[in-house]
């Protein structure tokens, strides 16, 4: 079994589900012959035909809106937004309809759909191509927000997202689309949603991160280990609804926590995690929950993007500060 990248795992999951479930349709800009600008849908139109893998006209609001109609009528639409920076015209449909249809019809109609988008910075792309605004979606009741951080989790979580009876925003960290390879058996086995993954065991500090930021976070954990500090690393994966209990459990051991995310800090998901830790584990804490995040400004053009993204230096600095607290 050849080892595959995260983006190939996405393709593999889409292909699996297209094959198994005739209700699944995949659509978006350039997802057909071109296979998507990141090749996430490469070969799918050739295998499943233009009736199930479709290029749409260029209109994100439309893409978000038709998915609601398709899902309510019994299909399992998987819609691609080319970059997260272009998802916003679709927000109205996601918030006002996809997230609410089940509730407002008291369960009569529902929205089993997936909105996929590559997200995050660090690939030297032009303006508006490096967004990470997961917190906006995580604030919306009725949605699920899922971020994979490895080929295996991309495969298993995307299968789960497609099969989930409710709408899922599936954000793919494009900086690590091809960063590492894993063997991912194409066995159709989904991974659980709404559950954190513990990526590394440790006793001294808990690091919470998701998506591409886990690359530097795990590297920081290795570095710390060389220094005798064992960090526990937790990937929430499903950011909403958030499984806080796995994080709290970890804190019972470590009593210290750093949250790392690429997104701007203010009202980012780190704030919610910090607030919940504060609520559920106030007495456990030996130091304030520290956030290592993007800055509260627009993601800069590529010359400065490495200064914006949390790197190992900043993660290590945050960890040391937290370990040394009060100092």
């Amino acid at each position, binding site marked *: 079994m050849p080892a595959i990248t995260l983006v190939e795992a996405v393709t593999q999951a889409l292909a699996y589900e297209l094959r198994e479930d005739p209700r699944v*349709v995949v659509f978006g800009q350039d997802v057909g012959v071109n296979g998507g600008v990141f090749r996430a849908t490469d070969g799918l139109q050739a295998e499943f035909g233009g009736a199930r893998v479709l290029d749409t006209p260029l209109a994100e609001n439309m893409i978000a809106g038709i998915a609601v109609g398709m899902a309510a009528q019994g299909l399992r639409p998987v819609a691609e937004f080319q970059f997260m920076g272009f998802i916003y015209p679709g927000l109205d449909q996601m918030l006002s309809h996809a997230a609410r249809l089940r509730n407002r019809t008291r369960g009569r109609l529902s929205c089993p759909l997936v909105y996929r988008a590559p997200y995050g910075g660090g690939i030297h792309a032009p303006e508006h191509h490096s967004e990470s605004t997961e917190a906006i979606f995580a604030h919306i009741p009725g949605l699920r927000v899922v971020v994979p951080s490895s080929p295996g989790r991309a495969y298993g979580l995307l299968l789960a997202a497609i099969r989930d009876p409710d709408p899922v925003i599936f954000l793919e960290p494009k900086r690590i689309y091809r960063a590492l390879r894993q063997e991912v058996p194409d066995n159709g086995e989904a991974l659980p949603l709404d559950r954190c993954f513990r990526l590394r065991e440790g006793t001294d500090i808990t690091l919470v991160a998701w998506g591409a930021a886990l690359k530097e976070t795990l590297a920081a954990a290795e570095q710390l280990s060389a220094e005798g500090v064992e960090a526990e690393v937790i990937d929430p994966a499903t950011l909403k609804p958030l499984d806080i209990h796995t994080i709290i459990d970890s804190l019972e051991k470590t009593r210290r926590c750093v949250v790392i995310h690429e997104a701007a800090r203010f009202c980012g998901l780190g704030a919610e995690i910090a607030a919940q830790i504060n609520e559920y584990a106030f007495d456990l804490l030996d130091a304030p929950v520290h956030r290592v995040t993007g800055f509260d400004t627009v993601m800069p053009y590529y010359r400065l993007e490495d200064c914006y993204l949390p790197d190992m230096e900043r993660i290590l600095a945050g960890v040391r500060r937290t370990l040394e607290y009060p100092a």
Partner: protein
Amino acid sequence: MHKPRMHLVASFDIAHLQYLDEQGRATQALPDFATPDALQAMYRQMALARLVDDHAVKLQRTGQLGTYPSSLGQEAIGVGTGGALRRQDIYCPYYRETGALLERGVEVAEILAIWGGYERGQDFRHAPGDFPLCIPIATQLLHAAGVAFALAYQQRHMGAEPRVVVTSAGDGASSRGDFYEAMNLAGAWKLPVVFVINNNQWAISVSRRAQTAACTIAQKAVAAGINSLQVDGNDVIAVRAAVSDAVERARAGGGPMLIEAVSYRLCDHTTADDASRYCPPDELEAARAREPLLRLARYLGHAGLWDSAREEELQRELAEIMERELLAYRDWEPEVPTAMLEHLYATLPEPLLEQYDELAAMPPPTGAS
């Protein structure tokens, strides 16, 4: 610059359809469906819609209902549209839709419940595939395009029978990008969807002329490369004929269509509005003379198919229905606080259990209205 020579690359005509003029006289031979029975049935439905609207407004005025949008004067559009669909077709309505909802089998009590603050009103018992009333303007047009894709897909790839979706919106909605994006996709993908615009000349206080420089709404379909037609929206026969024709063409694979039904809002925008602030009284008066019930009654009267006795009998029958439905609304089972979490997801996610318990411990609200 001096006038250069140019050549023509495309030409478009917008046509208007009418069967009954303002005096209720047939302007041409009526379509086959327009049998005496059918016309009387349409009249009845329009009268019921008017009665429901009238009662709903009164309920609101007496604090028994929330904000309500009457369709006074536009009954022909709802009834003509709703009647053009088959049961298994799908309807994606906007909010000003009494006539069409009744045609679809939605219960009067359900309609009242929606505006009375109960989500469960949207759980249309007899129209289980239809979309709920849609408040955010024009967004439902995209749902309809998606439904149309699904219907065509299920027909072609899953052996389902051919079905069609009809969706409605107001003239104001035609300014939203959604309207255009939905039509454009429907055209590009040749989807079985019919867009019906209730051009009642107002979007709250903004007149049709302030809304767009286009002289018709129908011509907006040209942008999407799809067919369109303007109909006299106060002539239920014209509405029904146009929508039926479009629906059956779509069913046969002929693609989408836009229908502009020209009418007039003879009431406030909703019970929260005061149209006297902006609506010229003489314009309103003139419009009143063109309204759809009077027009059809006149036609039926000329044809010996209607008289004041039948009208009285009809009103008695409708009043009874209304009575029953009002009771059903008054007895509507209240929602309990936990209801707001019960249908958010298929299964309540664990992290929400705590909030669910908090709601479960709450006393039910005391008679909010």
